[in-house]
């Protein structure tokens, strides 16, 4: 008797994508008739009209024989709820899969407890995808206000879920947004709440929903400001908020712009903070015998064997000036001329400095002139030796020696000429434009004035710019002169 049924295939047509009831009824009858899963195929009403080929013959199900006692269908509660969830998945083989599991579960009662079973694995994967989709719909629906009626605010939203979950999420929204009227439109279905009852309607399109809301601007403001640019973890964001949802999120178009600015914003924070930090760090050269005179200091320095020598001239250029000078000028490093003559500030930059000093009536002979780095660093090009800027390690090496010079001369004011000197005297990369023009508390206790190096003025290409910068330089020197001899 049974074999006759088994030879034919059964084609079951369900009323809709979410016709869980229909599936259950059919599945029960198929099971009772003992029909194996490979004999059954499932489809949805209307698919044939939509172009799907109806390949299998549609056989009638065996009528329930009243004389036969129907075989009881057993299914655990857990498995049933898992199946109900998984059936909302968009994949077409879900009905097939669910029936196969149901069929197998009749002979293997604990089947659903085995997570390593291939069918169960797939079912679990479907259920998980549906649960995730539901969760994301809870999260990413965005309501827009369309007005008020009878004291109740009215909101509308457009959402595109991956699976057939629109009706399944309705209870959540009813219980959460009880006190307002709302309508959620998806391509497949729409759900609406009026404070009293839920209604399910046909799907719609994005144009059915208004495209703006006054509060959205504030939400975008919040989104942009709660983002911490010091931490950028794009993948973490994308895994939890996949880009497929972005098109319906009012805040998502801010993301590229926020990411673009993040680097600069953090950079600005750090460099500002560094600039603010003029008091700092010891780079201690461990040295037991502290020199008692400048000559002793320079002698000691000449005998140091660990000084950076690569690219450097052998000659040490000592600072010059009276030991009790009021003002100490610290330059970058000796240049070609300085190296040859063994004196600081005698090259072209030195001459420019002389001119400026004269203008503010400072006597060069009364100043103590020295450099942050005591030797000339250069690269050779043919016969010429081209100046090369010392690096941080080299500046740090000589820092202790400059500090000793300051200690021995004990000037009333230290003037840092250029970035290298400023770095040496503050221990930090410092923006000159930010600090020039005022007397700062230096870290050794001496007041500090930061300005540009005269060689900078020589490198400005156009005449007008040079004049402007020169005037600023003179103004800074004037400040130094006024500070050291007020009145």
């Amino acid at each position, binding site marked *: 008797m049974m074999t006759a049924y088994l030879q034919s295939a059964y084609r079951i047509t369900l009323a809709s994508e979410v016709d869980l009831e229909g599936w259950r009824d059919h599945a029960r009858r198929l099971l009772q008739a003992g029909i194996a899963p490979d004999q059954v195929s499932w489809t949805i009403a209307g698919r044939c009209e939509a172009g799907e080929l109806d390949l299998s013959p549609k056989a009638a199900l065996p009528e329930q024989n009243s004389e036969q006692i129907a075989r009881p269908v057993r299914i655990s509660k857990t498995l049933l709820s898992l199946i109900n969830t998984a059936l909302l998945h968009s994949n077409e083989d879900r009905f097939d899969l669910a029936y196969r599991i149901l069929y197998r579960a009749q002979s293997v009662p604990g089947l659903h407890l085995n997570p*390593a079973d291939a069918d169960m694995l797939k079912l679990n994967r479907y259920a998980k995808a549906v649960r995730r989709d539901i969760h994301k719909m809870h999260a990413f629906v965005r309501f827009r206000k369309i007005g008020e009626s009878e004291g109740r605010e009215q909101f509308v939203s457009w959402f595109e879920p991956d699976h057939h979950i629109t009706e399944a999420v309705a209870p959540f929204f009813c219980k959460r947004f009880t006190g307002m009227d709302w309508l959620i439109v998806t391509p497949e279905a729409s759900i609406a709440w009026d404070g009293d009852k839920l209604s399910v309607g046909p799907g719609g399109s994005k144009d059915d929903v208004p495209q703006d809301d006054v509060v959205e601007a504030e939400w975008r403001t919040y989104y*942009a400001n709660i983002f911490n640019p010091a*931490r950028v973890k794009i993948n973490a964001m994308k895994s939890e908020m996949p880009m497929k949802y972005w098109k319906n999120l009012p805040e998502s178009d801010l993301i590229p712009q926020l990411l673009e600015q993040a680097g600069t914003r953090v950079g600005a924070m*750090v460099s500002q903070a560094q600039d603010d930090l003029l008091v700092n760090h010891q780079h201690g050269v461990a040295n037991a015998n502290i020199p008692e005179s400048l000559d002793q200091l320079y002698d000691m320095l000449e005998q140091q064997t660990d000084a950076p020598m690569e690219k450097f001239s052998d000659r040490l250029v000592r600072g010059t000036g009276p030991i009790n000078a009021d003002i100490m000028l610290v330059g970058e490093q000796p240049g070609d001329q300085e190296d040859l003559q063994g004196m600081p500030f005698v090259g072209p930059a030195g001459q420019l400095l002389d001119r400026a000093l004269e203008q503010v009536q400072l006597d060069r002979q009364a100043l103590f002139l020295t450099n942050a780095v005591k030797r000339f660093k250069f690269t050779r090009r043919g016969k010429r030796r081209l100046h090369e800027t010392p690096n941080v390690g080299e500046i740090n090496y000589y820092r202790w020696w400059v500090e000793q010079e300051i200690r021995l001369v004990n000037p009333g004011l230290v003037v840092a000429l250029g970035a290298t000197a400023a770095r040496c005297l503050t221990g930090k990369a410092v923006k000159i434009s930010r600090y020039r023009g005022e007397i700062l508390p230096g870290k050794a206790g001496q007041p500090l004035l930061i300005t540009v190096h005269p060689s900078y003025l020589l490198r400005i290409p156009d005449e007008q710019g040079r004049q402007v910068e020169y005037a600023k330089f003179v103004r800074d020197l004037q400040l130094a002169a006024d500070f050291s001899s007020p009145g």
Partner: protein
Amino acid sequence: MSKLSRSEKLAILADAAKYDASCASSGSVKRNSAKSGGIGSTGGMGICHSYAPDGRCISLLKILMTNYCMFNCLYCINRSSSNVQRAAFTVQEIVDLTLDFYKRNYIEGLFLSSGIIRSPDYTMEQLVEVARRLRVVHRFGGYIHLKTIPEADPELLRQAGQCADRLSINIELPDDESIARLAPEKDGKLIRRTMNNLGKKVRDAKAERKTSRKAPLFAPGGHSTQMIIGADASDDAKILTTSNGLYGSYGLKRVYYSAFSPIPDASSNLPLQAPPLLREHRLYQADWLLRFYGFSVSEIMQGGTAGQLDLAIDPKLAWALQNRACFPVNINLADKESLLRIPGLGGKGVGKILQARRFTSLRLADLERICQSVKKILPFITTVDWHPGKQLDSLKLYDRLKPPPEQLSLFGT
């Protein structure tokens, strides 16, 4: 100064609140508006309504009531000596903003904190008033997290607990000495005393609910705290010991670790560098090991050196490499505790293994179906058809398991 609009205030006060790590909206009672006819619900599980490019979820409207502050905590952008732009919301503005956002499904609720203005009591009163108005006047059923001010009156703390789902007090730094140095107005002892008081109230209320369903709720989502990482010299061992103590003594739900970010206008007493995000990540992993995997602080620290966790590999793997005698673990026979110690296997994976092996002796093919990545756990397990052989004793195992070096980006930030 011209009056700021609500949107301008929001920009300032959201910006000021972003250094709070917590955004959890989970773990409270289940509640909905079906009966009250109001707005809002909480489920067991929180919902993250959006994600910022920093990878953190946006679940709550996280703002300060005001960023004016009398205190001068050096790691804080809102300290009195900082020259950030200041703003203050009124109570009603916060209430309206919360409801406006909530009704558009942007948020799960409110996380409200504040700088200290006038007095700790006054500030706390205002915070409680926001929560009260939301709950009582607007029948708001969403999540409320209030930052509690340790110096405020205990009576205010009680009121706060009645309205809020979660309360928190920031411990800020791992030890009292650092607190005294970097947050001169704060007192580590007082913070812990208040935390203890809070923990007791939460516990008592929970116990009472067991005897009567009408007993009043008190912060049903429990309480949490936050520690700043990298602002002082405390090592990981110190931090984890502190957290372990906090979980044990005060019944905290969570300890959040916040890598110290370079803040605009930072104080000069703090280190300046990118926030130690990887360290923060490793601390969270270690925190999980403490709470869910049965590890002790000293065990976790076996995998580190000189009191610091290994940044290259996760703390569980680091522990396993120092304790190779415990491996390989037989997947088919081992008890749950031993399975949980296998690096690369989490709580869920272990649950599935326990379930699946009731049906069959597990083979690698079975494991592949139920575990995230079999490759990671291979050196540490045996199955019916697998034994790691000598590789467990290999000196190169560490190098083989650590993540491959990353090519630096030419265009990265």
